[in-house]
């Protein structure tokens, strides 16, 4: 069987190759018909186009014949049968729409198998994902409210905008379960539309990439140039609003090291942020948006900036701050010293500090697992119910008795609905 199939396939291939040239011709002809109909004008378009196409070579032939002294009739007789033959459509399985084809049909078997298949695939995935998610330990601490001294509680804006107030704030976190290293430190902002169109566009990737593009600040307004028309590097609202809260961690009065290594995408560090681009005129305007940058460090090393510049997709987002490279045991109490600099009070944004381990599915995320389990379960349920339907009320497939004109006309007519 297999051999035969192979053979026929080979034959088909050869045939196709032979016919491809002819098909092209035919296609060309049809294409021009369309031209006629679309454009409506062609020389003598009174003539259906085929006549024209075929008759013109004949004309040429005839003229040749007469000039060489041959008889016109002979030429005519020769060309006529040739013409006849060429008009007959060439046979190929393609043009006759008879290509070998797979015609899928929703038999009960296939339907049930599909549902069972989906169920069988989805339920384990859901379980594994849920399991992985369960293993992720996450500590979330919202500090924006609590870090305001009580005397400023009604004037948080003043507090945050003033350069004189003490912004240091200490929080204690309890580790609920053991957290294996690396423990990732995130800050989470809320109601901060990093995906706002004005904001997303307000950057210059050329400038970030190389020194040569320094003056390319067209998209960066209103944070493009200083008053002396010197370009701001990095320009734009995104860079300008760089997050500037800092966190210091200590466990049992022993400072925990926060590693900033590899918190940004390597591709960004290597190719998008130039190693020869240094911050210039940054945060020198009338309004300070956020963190300042050390102008002696090239942009490619400014990992916090690089992380920040990958603008978030949603208005609630986390950004990686750093990593703690030691394991944290259950019930460990971590003291966090926060420099609460970043102003989210003006728009009511929350600030959270998140410590989390990861698994293969990323951070803590029950949704994925649950969704998979639900869908898998539903599919199994459907499979069972369809099985019942087929057992209880089977409809023989392809039974002509079900054809509408064979049924009682008073019965169901599906198109009437």
């Amino acid at each position, binding site marked *: 069987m297999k051999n035969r199939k192979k053979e026929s396939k080979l034959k088909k291939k050869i045939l196709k190759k032979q016919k491809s040239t002819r098909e092209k011709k035919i296609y060309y002809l*049809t294409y021009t*018909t369309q031209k*006629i*109909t679309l454009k409506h*004008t062609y*020389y003598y378009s*009174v*003539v*259906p186009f*085929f*006549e*024209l196409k075929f*008759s013109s070579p004949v004309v040429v032939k005839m*003229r040749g014949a007469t000039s060489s002294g041959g008889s*016109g009739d002979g030429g*005519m007789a020769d060309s006529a049968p040739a013409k006849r033959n060429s*008009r*007959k459509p060439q046979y190929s399985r393609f043009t*006759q*729409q008879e290509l070998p*084809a*797979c*015609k*899928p*049909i929703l038999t009960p078997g296939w339907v049930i198998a599909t549902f069972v298949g*989906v169920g069988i695939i989805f339920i384990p*995935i859901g379980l594994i*994902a849920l399991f992985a998610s369960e293993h992720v330990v996450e500590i979330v601490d919202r500090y924006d409210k609590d870090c305001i001294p009580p005397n400023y509680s009604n004037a948080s804006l003043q507090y945050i905008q003033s350069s004189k107030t003490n912004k240091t704030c200490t929080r204690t976190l309890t580790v609920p379960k053991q957290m294996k290293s690396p423990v990732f430190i995130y800050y989470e902002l809320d109601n*901060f*539309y990093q*995906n*706002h169109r004005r*904001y*997303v566009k307000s950057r210059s990737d050329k400038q970030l990439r190389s020194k040569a593009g320094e003056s390319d600040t067209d998209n960066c307004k209103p944070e493009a*140039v*200083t*008053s002396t028309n010197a370009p701001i590097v990095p320009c734009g609202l995104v860079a300008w*609003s760089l997050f500037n809260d800092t966190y210091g961690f200590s466990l049992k009065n022993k400072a925990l090291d926060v590693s900033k290594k590899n918190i940004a995408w390597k*591709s960004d560090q290597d190719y*998008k942020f130039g190693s020869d681009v240094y911050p210039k005129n940054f945060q020198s305007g*009338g309004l300070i948006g956020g963190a300042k940058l050390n102008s002696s460090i090239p942009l490619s090393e400014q990992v916090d900036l690089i992380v920040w510049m990958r603008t978030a*997709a*949603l*208005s609630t987002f986390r950004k990686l701050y750093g990593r703690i490279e030691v394991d944290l045991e259950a019930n460990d109490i971590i003291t966090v010293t926060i420099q609460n600099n970043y102003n989210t009070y*003006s728009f009511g944004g929350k600030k959270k500090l998140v410590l989390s381990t990861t698994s293969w*599915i*990323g*951070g803590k995320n029950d949704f*994925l697992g649950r*969704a*998979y389990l639900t*869908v898998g379960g539903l599919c199994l349920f*459907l499979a069972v119910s369809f099985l019942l*339907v087929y057992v209880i009320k089977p409809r023989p*497939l*392809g*039974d*002509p008795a079900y*054809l509408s004109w064979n049924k009682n*006309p008073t019965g169901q007519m599906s198109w009437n609905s």
Partner: protein
Amino acid sequence: MTSGQPLLQSSDPSASSQPCPSCGFGSLGCLCSNDSFSSSIINDPQGNLFGLDCLEKGDKDLSVGDTRFHSSVGESFGSVETTQQFHSVETPRIERLSLECPTHENKRLVSWGAMELPHSNSSNTPSASFEISRGSSVVHAKVGSRALSSLHDNKSQRKSRHKSSQFDDNVLCEEDARFIYINDPRRTNDKYEFTGNEIRTSKYTLITFLPKNLFIQFHRVAYLYFLAIAALNQLPPLAVFGRTVSLFPLLFVLCVTAIKDGYEDWRRHRSDRNENNREALVLQSGHFQHKRWKKIRAGEVVKICADETIPCDMVLLGTSDPSGIAYIQTMNLDGESNLKTRYARQETSSALSEGCTISGLIRCERPNRNIYEFTANMEFNRHKFSLSQSNIVLRGCQLKNTDWIIGVVVYAGQETKAMLNSAASPSKRSKLESYMNRETLWLSIFLFIMCLVVALGMGLWLARYKDQLDTLPYYRKTYFTHGKDYGKRYKYYGIPMEIFFSFLSSIIVFQIMIPISLYITMELVRLGQSYFMIGDRHMYDYSSGSRFQCRSLNINEDLGQVRYIFSDKTGTLTENKMEFQRASVYGKNYGGSLVAADQLQKENLSAAAAHRRWKLKSSIAVDPKLMRLLHKDSVGDERIAVHEFFLTLAACNTVIPIRTCDRSSSCAESQCHEDVETIEYQGESPDEQALVAAASAYGYTLFERTSGHIVIDVNGEKLRFDVLGLHEFDSLRKRMSVVIRFPNDDVKVLVKGADTSMFSILAKDNERDHHVRHATQCHLTEYSSQGLRTLVVAARDLSEAELELWQCRFDDASTSLTDRATKLRQTAALIECDLNVLGATGIEDKLQDGVPEAIESLRQAGIKVWVLTGDKQETAISIGLSCKLLTMDMEQIIINGNSENECRKLLADAKAKHGVKTSDGGNRNLKCNKNAEIDYLEISEGKKEGIVKVPLALIIDGNSLVYILEKDLESELFDLATSCKVVLCCRVAPLQKAAIVDLIKSRTDDMTLAIGDGANDVSMIQMADVGVGICGQEGRQAVMASDFAMGQFRFLNRLLLVHGHWNYQRIGYLVLYNFYRNAVFVLMLFWYILCTAFSTTSALTDWSSVFYSVIYTSVPTIVVGTLDKDLSHRTLLQYPKLYGAGYRQEAYNMHLFWITMADTLWQSLVLFSIPLFIYKESTIDIWSMGSLWTIAVVILVNIHLAMDVQRWVFITHVAVWGSVIITFACMVVLDSIPVFPNYGTIYHLAKSPTYWLTILLIIVIALLPRFLFKVVHQIFWPSDIQIAREAEILRRGPDHLRPRLDGRSS
């Protein structure tokens, strides 16, 4: 009727038969303007005058004017003034005369303009007009005066043209004529700059290409939409996409189209150049020399040799044939491949052969596009004679069977009839497309709502954060830079303006909600479908070698929804290959038993046939009885009648015998005849060919035909008859007659025609004739009940006086430039009266192959087949029976009333009898649906009470239709007709055919299809939603007017049931899918925008947004739209009822649209929210999210498509999965360019398992409801198509199904 003009054929009775008074005024106005017309135009009424005088008096001394005219000696310039004065004096009299003319029934006065003048004032006018002619010719010749005269000319010409157009364009004013001086191109082109022979079919030149092409392209609404969107995007506050990106789709489409147009135009340039640079022999200074086509001018004399193409429209002057015949092939012009004869006038051709110099004047009508008519007259050697269509050869034709011809160019270049004809018929729009536009309107409403939501949201959000906007990190509308900009606002125009801009920019983002690309996709898909239809070998006609043709690309899917078929009979249902079957001669019936003529000859008549040295191309069976009668030597009345009968058959026609020598074939066949000639009859009417061939079989062989005489070989004896005149067949008279002079100087008029038109003009007096007449009538009824086409043959002797009178009138009429047809008809009436009936003929027109089967299955498919024919009622009914249109169990309602009241009564009776309810206008649609349902129930053979009744057949004739269609009986007819199973209309005129189509088209929503093969079907073909032409024997006018053309009627079956079904299913699905595809994408963007503070941010990169509909998802739709098919052609042909899905609109309707939209909403929500939940509190960045969405949506729509694909061929796999792969590839490429902010995203994402799991989850959840719906629907409410498909696939072919099905259904 919606379009009147194309229906008005040249022989429209109302337009031509009554010269209304205003027409008279029209020509009068022209005449008046004549007075200032100081050049040769004056000569012409003048010339007419002489010609007439010559005829009358037989002397030629009055024609001095002409000789002077040519010599044109000096005369005072002042004579212009005198002529003018003279004319202004003359004017009132002309006015009076021409006003009188139409009312006069005087024999002499034929009702037109200046020609009568000489008769009424013959005493004084000749001299006066002589002066005019002299004066004017002098003016013309004088170089100095030319300026003035041309000034005059221009003025008066303008004036006259204006006037004539004011009154009536149909009447050709004498001044509207063109003057061609033979062999004097300088003079011809002197006054009017006739166009040269250079043609230009190209549209552009290098300089005009860009602006003109763009201008033409932007005529399309779609491009304007693109342009508007792109323009909006250029405004700084709205720049949603990058500026170049937004222009990309428009530029892409424009460029592709421009390149295509440019290429086409280049090819046109090339073909023009080739065409213009061809060479022809032109008479220059006495010798024929080669000249390029483009340099040929009107008035030049051109010589064409055999097989050359004719460079311009020419009047024949002479040919190599001494009798002045030339054969041309008009393939390029009208597609007919048979040779046509053209004649040079004897006068010119003899002059040519004598070697005289050729000079003369041709007056011809202005260039027009009617290739079947030419009106002109020629003044040559002091003779004046008419020229007609048979004297002109048109550009593009080829000369055949003739060594050379010489002709004078009358129209050149763009003014040739071929060039004037190169315009197209208006394009039709498919029904599905108009529904689609309705749904597109819904989509625009959605678009509007979405934009409104975004705009209002933006407004509310801005209002809420109004105070913080200055410093909000992600909005910051104020400059805080120290310096001049300090405190300035940045891109902020106040809340109302921001709302407005937000609205506009959301239109830009959501633009593809309106599926503009769908129109382009549909065009491509239809192109593909046409390719398959053309390539279908089952629709190739072997006998004529004609393929299926798609002449219109816009209505492929209409083929799947046809409810009514209006079919012509002759040539459509039948082969239009006529065979002479029966003859009734002198009251005796012949043709009961036929024997092959050759056999007969061998048996007993070999002596007579022995010296026959020619044979016919086809042999015909003859009746031995009749044959014997012919060879009897007795000279009785009967014998004479038989003789005349066959003479009429041989002579009274326009058939041309073409003799060819083929020795070889005859030698091979039998004993060697020397020089056996084969005679082939070529003619435009197959009936005539059959009759001539029959006459030949009985020994009356038409041997030679020229314009002046015919040679008939009567049993070996060659008789030469002079043809004095020939009144061609026209649809009003329905007969043709020929006046011939016998060798013994008898003059007879021989007439043949339709029985209705003949019996009224027969002689009524004599008793014996009465018997013959009665017998003939009986035979006619018999013939037509057998389905034969009948003609009555009659003749009479013409007395000397009658002849003279007729000849005079005939010459008048045939040389007239205006109203020639009417005048000829009047002239014909003079002699076509008091005829003696000779007999009648019955010609069989065989049914085409497979017609009964085709009609049967079309009927099963629920299509109503109406036959509209010009034949007699009996013929129509018998054909109806033989093609199974009518069955014996049907009750026939016959309506043939002769008055309005009678028709009304007949209709009312029929309605009352068969319980047809009257529908009023209000619930017309309801009625139609009901009708459809009843029909359906009938088909399904249901036994519901009250509905089952005898199937009805309505037979109605043209006469009644005249009353019914013009009066308010239309709706009655409609009610009756729609409740009948079969409708047969007989004796209908072309315009009535169209009116019947219109009756159905305007009163129902059902799709109508008209099929026909002849010129008389053109109006109906153009009127119907789908016009199908049959490439048959009767020329190609029908094909020209049609949307689809094919070789045989039975292909209609395949065309509708198979290709129509496929096309409809494909396009229907294509449209829905395209709506879905674009809407799901737009909705996904919309949900996201709600999460971005309404700021029209798109998570997708600009390029991805643009590529989505252009690259990522376009190919599969096209491939599936062209290649997918639900059922095999075998199944479809076997169960014609499956076709019902088309006209029940099962593949595309409102219902499906809303289901699709609901599904779209669900899918878009899933697309948006699953990633949202999964990445809710994560570090995901906007580009990763966009990347995820891009991939997810592309995979989703492709799998959605894959779920619905019913036939997976290799190409489908490549297209669907290839698209997904290409999308990934594009993402990889886009993410590998470091200048883009999204650099590296896909690499990062692909490493994360969550990403893949998310995509999988999205697809499963999004498609689950759809899949479920589909499965449930298929289990509980399977459609017919579904069941047939299951049967086809599971039982391995439909053969399994057949016995079981039959068993069940019976």
